[in-house]
């Protein structure tokens, strides 16, 4: 009785929440799904055995600035619909993997932003028809492809069972003052004018509310969401030898008012500009093999890119993948003092909000914390509803961006260490290791690209990690020396077996991860790592020279008046 008493109010609360908070959109989607599913089952051949509608509603506001001027200031509300239709059976359906024939049905169809059933239902109906056609055509191609089943190593089904969930949460509100932020972004980006080497400067704030509506033919009905805010700083310049250089920083929080105060942000812009200026003067790096420390945020990115993507379940089934860990379950994959957890249910670490949190994944499966590696031993993969050998069900990691098909993706990747020392102690261990190996210096990777910067226009690959801020750490007591143009040789996966120790301070890297199911927000949390060996080389230099004419004079520089006068005289 005592336990029941506790449970009652909860259930009661949820039912009340349902009645009050369910958006008219969810009702419209449910009704149209029901109608299409029943009519298709009665009339279509092959009939669908599963239909889901997923709508992502995003309200966003942005302000971008450069050198004191706005570049962009905009806001908007969009709704995108993705329809999933499965024909055949869970054993073999239209999502079955087939080489050279990618299963792509979703289209992120824009839906009316107003809750008008007439307008919404027409679009949902036509989109369901379009997806049903593609689904049945692909199933025919799969069935005709006799090689499909025979040659497959993993005979798992195409779709697994999942619990039916109902969860309705009130639509959150986006609070963001466009006017205030426009002014703030102008002030922040004005800082770039004080630094002569900065050729390109971008300070960008994006604040958004995302609400996901999900209904499927199994009865799951969800309405849930998140808000987030991200402030990014990116400054670029060109060294005298033509090498293109970049300094960057970013801050993430659940809402814009949880971001650092303006003074702290201004200090961050200044720091990036100063880092770039220092990089422009720094010596280009020489090829090197030896010990290094990766800062917590750099280590987080490495874990995410190098390790995290390899434990995504669907890769174990895809024969075009490297399948590094497919047969490693129960075997050591990391040093025994390390454990890795993927935990979307965790909202923050310390005072830092985590980007990879959610309550339900994009297949409507409740989020679960997954212990991927325990004391060095691989225990599990990240799973969507596409089962693999030994892992028949989803653990709530099926994710996608609107318009892409769901695959298993990372959430909050958290690295835990039982061999953790104070940061100062870790540095001492590095110096010892440098001496032990007889090297003149080791390396300290303070910052590497990830998330935001990997999508930059220089065409970096999603899985490539480019070190941005790297220091030489000398064993003889000389101060650390910044170097530029560092690129990592080979796969740093090998370095993971060479982790000697970690710090005891977890650092958070919030980012946006791009892969086959699009961009999804993620976090990586790791302490700093000491590795016995990492190999680096020099990046190729740029193809062109720095600008031919000197930079036009700027107000904050001392020689402004003279330059302006000269300019005027020239005109006369």
């Amino acid at each position, binding site marked *: 009785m005592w336990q029941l008493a506790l449970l009652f109010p909860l259930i009661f609360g949820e039912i009340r929440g349902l009645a009050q908070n369910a958006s008219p959109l969810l009702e419209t989607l449910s009704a*149209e799904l029901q*109608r*299409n599913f029943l*009519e*298709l089952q009665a*009339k*279509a051949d092959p009939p669908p055995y599963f239909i889901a509608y997923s709508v992502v509603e995003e309200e966003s506001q942005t302000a*971008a600035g*450069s*050198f*004191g*001027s*706005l*570049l*962009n*200031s*905009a806001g*908007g*509300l*969009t709704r995108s619909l993705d329809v999933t239709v499965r024909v055949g059976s869970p054993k073999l359906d239209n999502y079955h993997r087939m080489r050279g024939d990618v299963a792509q049905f979703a289209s992120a169809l*824009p839906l*009316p*932003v*107003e*809750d*008008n059933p*007439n*307008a*919404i*239902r*027409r679009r*949902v*109906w*036509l989109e*369901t*028809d379009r997806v049903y*056609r593609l689904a049945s055509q692909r199933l025919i191609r799969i069935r005709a492809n006799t090689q499909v089943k025979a040659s497959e190593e993993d005979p798992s089904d195409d779709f697994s069972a999942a619990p039916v969930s109902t969860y309705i949460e009130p639509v959150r509100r986006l609070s963001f003052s466009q006017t205030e932020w426009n002014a703030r972004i*102008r002030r922040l980006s004005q800082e770039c*004018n004080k630094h002569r080497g900065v*050729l*390109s400067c971008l300070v960008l704030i994006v604040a958004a509310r995302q609400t996901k509506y999900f209904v499927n033919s199994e009865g799951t009905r969800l309405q849930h969401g998140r808000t987030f805010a991200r402030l990014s700083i990116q400054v*670029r310049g*060109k060294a005298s030898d033509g090498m*293109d250089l970049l300094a960057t920083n970013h801050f993430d929080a659940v809402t814009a008012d949880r971001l650092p105060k303006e003074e702290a942000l201004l200090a961050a812009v200044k720091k990036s500009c100063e880092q770039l200026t220092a990089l422009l003067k720094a010596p280009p790096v020489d090829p090197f093999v030896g010990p290094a420390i990766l800062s917590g945020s750099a280590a987080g990115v490495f874990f995410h890119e190098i390790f995290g993507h390899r434990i995504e379940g669907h890769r174990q089934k895809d024969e075009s993948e490297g399948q590094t860990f497919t047969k490693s379950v129960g075997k050591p994959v990391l040093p025994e003092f390390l454990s890795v957890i993927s935990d979307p249910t965790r909202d923050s670490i310390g005072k830092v909000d985590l980007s990879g949190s959610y309550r339900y994944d994009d297949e409507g499966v409740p989020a679960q914390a997954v212990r991927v590696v325990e004391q060095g031993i691989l225990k599990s993969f990240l799973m969507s509803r596409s089962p693999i050998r030994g892992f028949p069900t989803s653990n709530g990691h099926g994710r996608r961006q609107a318009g892409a098909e769901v695959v298993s993706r990372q959430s909050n990747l958290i690295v835990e260490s039982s061999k953790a020392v104070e940061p100062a102690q870790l540095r001492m261990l590095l110096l010892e290791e440098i001496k032990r190996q007889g090297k003149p210096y080791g390396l300290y990777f303070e910052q590497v690209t990830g998330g935001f910067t990997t999508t930059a*226009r*220089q065409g970096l690959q999603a899985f490539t990690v480019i070190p941005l801020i790297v220091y030489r750490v000398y064993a003889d007591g000389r101060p650390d020396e910044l170097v530029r143009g560092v690129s990592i040789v080979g796969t740093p996966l090998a370095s993971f077996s060479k982790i000697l120790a970690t710090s005891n301070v977890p650092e958070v890297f919030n980012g946006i991860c791009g892969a086959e199911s699009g961009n999804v927000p993620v976090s990586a949390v790791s302490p700093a790592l000491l590795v016995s060996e990492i190999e680096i080389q020099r990046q190729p230099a*740029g*193809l*062109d*020279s720095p*600008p*031919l*004419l000197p*930079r*036009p004079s*700027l*107000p904050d520089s001392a020689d402004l008046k003279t330059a302006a006068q000269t*300019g005027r005289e*020239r*005109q006369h």
Partner: protein
Amino acid sequence: MRLLKFLFGFPVLVFAQQDTNDVVLRAMKDEMARSRALRLVDAPPYFVEYTLDDADLYLAGASLGALIRERRSRLRAPRIRVRAGEPKLDNSNHIFSDVYRGARYDATEFPLDDHYDALRLAFWLATDRAYKQALEALARKKASLKNISESDRLPDFSPASVVSLILPVPKRSFDETKWRDRLRDISAVYRAYPDIFFSEVTLGISNTTSYLVNNEGTEVRMPDFLTTFRIRVSTMAPDGMPIRDYAEFLTTDVDQLPSESQLKKAAQETGDQVSARRAAPYPENYSGPVLFEGVAGPQLLAETLGRHFSPPRRPVSDPERPINFLPGELEGRLGSRILPEWMDVLDDPTQKTWRGTTLLGHYPVDIEGVPPKPVVLIEKGVLKSFLSTRQPLPGQEGSNGHARLPGPLGNNLAVAGNLFFRSSQVTAVSDLRKKLLDLCQQRGKAYAYVVRKMDFPSTASADELRRISSGLSGRPVSIPLRLYRLYPDGREEMVRGLRFRAFTTRALRDILAVSDELYLFQYLESGAPFAHMDVSGYVAGVSVVAPALLFDELELERIPGELPKPPVVSPPPLIP
């Protein structure tokens, strides 16, 4: 608008009012002055041009009574052109003229504030990049030309006089709430059309200030305002054939749009058309007389002739690198007969209105800063002249001020402004129908065809465009949207699903008769196939005034290709 009218009265040079408060113009001119010092490998730029379009954009769409999208944005789109070498031979019009291999530091998003320093910096980096790109292209072009024997090569650039035109830019605002409601209301018309699968009503407003500065001393600032109101409707016939129609209203000012009740009527009329056509017969192929009535006349002439008055020049390439280049429809045909000898064509962008309607093809100077000249293109049926930019064309002295769209390889595209088709032999509209039926009788045909609306500019889906263009040699012509059989007893019957076969500019020589009445057709030229409406980016308004046209013999055929099946599930019910 009143102020503008006064200023537009001077067709050629307008003396600038000194506007020292315009920060954008000042930043452009100051950085332009500095670009004179650019010099690398002893090839200084001989021509530098900055253009900047400062645009306020609004787009809203509604369907079945609901707002389905709304966007407001502001952008500044720069275009920095640098020519190195000399007018006789420069970096333009080579297949690699637009290629730059270095890193770009000039922002693709331009500063939106009137922030002098940020603007200077942006123009500085853009000029630096454009100049380096020009040198690279010039070197490649010279290498390519070494291996090609070219007789009488035309120069790459022609001179133009210096223009100073600083026009005031009026502030514009409109009542968003009112227009949102209006869009909802008009779109709600389609609640009464359960057979229509898709309908959308959109309002687009683009208020642009265009700036131009070049190192010859030309400076321009002028307003460029455009409002588009579109109604688009589509569905599927029971046999799967896509059926669609649209109505488009273009003005320079949102307040000049037709009234709400007129727009509603247009929506209903478009809906009625589509519903009726859904059930219309799908006829067999036809060969015989065809009458283009009303706006279909100027539509046909705009597409098949108006778009071809400026043949593109073949870009320079390496001999071993074949390029996919389609010569212009009128290339090499100066002095040839294009139309009946009783027809003339004049392009006159200096005309502002026609019978009280503002002409979209009017502009004070083109995007190269050249004031447009009226050009007699066709006289007594014979091609006399081309529309030109500062890129020389054969048989053409300099620019006649028709550079209206930015083009590739360092040049701009010439587009018509206001095309006037004049005829010395005309027939009353009613007699034209009689003539059509007479022809019908002479040929022993049971009926003839009348076209009332062409699908130009087109709203076809990508799938449909493929079908429309498949199996045709040469340039496809858009399909007739509103097509009727006319029977000898005067009865009309709507049909669907036909296209013209092998219709080229040459067919226009055989126009049998034209109406005494003239019709105005205006559209937005983007350079895209069929001037498709879904292409965003630069557009130029074109006005065409022309009569109805009677052809002795044209071929209509069924559009080939498989038709999709109609949806399995019945349409959702519409809640009134």
